[in-house]
């Protein structure tokens, strides 16, 4: 059994079998899993915001869907993944509070925008999105297994889900 490597918030990591990757408590953030089934090069990014070009303070590229997925892709290729074999799975993008109105409204819906931005970036890179578990109103802890490419999703009071 390999190690379970933790990916923090606004963070990304690439590993190879037998090591695996996890990120804890995705709320409105998205966990983007990239996987090459042949070389078993495995990558996970935990992004917080959709678009780096709309934020002044954007030095941490792992914070954003556009720059974070690009960096994860580059790191995967560097680690020996084959571009044409890469597949993606995404999870997260929840709406944690049902705030009805007010200034916080745009932030509250950031989960949905994160999911859209992630899909758009994957499409631009030509990576096939094979499955996803996004939206709704609860947090998710994800585990990405390098041997199988299985993406396990754990949520409070819900059965374990595999995508």
């Amino acid at each position, binding site marked *: 059994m390999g190690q379970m490597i933790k990916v923090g918030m606004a963070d990304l990591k690439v590993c190879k079998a037998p090591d695996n990757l996890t990120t804890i408590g995705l709320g409105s953030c998205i966990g983007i899993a990239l996987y090459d089934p042949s070389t078993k090069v495995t990558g996970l990014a935990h992004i917080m915001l959709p678009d780096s070009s709309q934020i002044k*303070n954007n030095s941490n590229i792992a*914070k954003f869907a556009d720059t974070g997925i690009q960096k994860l892709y580059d790191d995967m290729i560097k680690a020996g993944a084959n571009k044409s074999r890469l597949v993606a799975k995404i999870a997260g993008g929840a709406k944690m*509070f049902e705030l009805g109105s007010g200034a916080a409204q745009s932030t509250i819906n950031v989960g949905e925008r994160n999911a859209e931005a992630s899909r758009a970036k994957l499409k631009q890179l030509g990576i096939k999105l094979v499955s996803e578990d996004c939206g709704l109103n609860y947090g998710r802890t994800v585990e990405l297994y390098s041997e199988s490419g299985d993406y396990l999703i754990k949520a409070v009071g819900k059965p374990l889900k595999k995508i």
Partner: protein
Amino acid sequence: MSDTHKSLDEINEMYIDVLKEIGNIGAGNATTAIANMLNLKIDMSVPQVELMPVEKIGSCIGAEDEVIVGIMLGVELDIEGSMMFLMDMRSAHHLVNQLMMRDYNYAEDFDEMDLSALKEVGNIIAGSYLSALSGLTNLSISPTVPFVTIDMAAAILSVPAVMFGMMGDKALLIKTEFGDDFEMNGFFILMPEEESYEKILSSLGLSL
């Protein structure tokens, strides 16, 4: 060197002191309100104010996967933004049991009534806190209806992380402990929109 141009660090330090004072008064008001509601004597600690990297916010209360209670409200009028009040499950159960006049050890899942009791606690705490801020700044500030979420700490805290993350790399947290003979832990997070920071500071005679 003239001292008219203060560095951002100095301003930050003054700002943190101001928020600490607001936190102190606000939490004091809130504690009194809850003590009256429960007819108990409740003590509170001096608030700790922490400026931390946004990425660390998910684990600022405890384990990232610990299930906690988050109560969130919008903030309107002169200051726009939102605020959040967080408690561990133990504290939340204790508070609800007191409010509902239940047995001390009752720890069943929260029902609708319990959740609305928690919202009321959120209302009182936010109201007291914001009236302290309003009193100090002479700004009109009003809370919106509260919402309660019970989930993993990191997932709940992703909300303030995103809000602070839109402005920069740092988040500001105010931590206060309060309790009767039973220790309770509560955390406030005030999340003003970017322009509201300036309003708070300039109303206090400070500038960025």
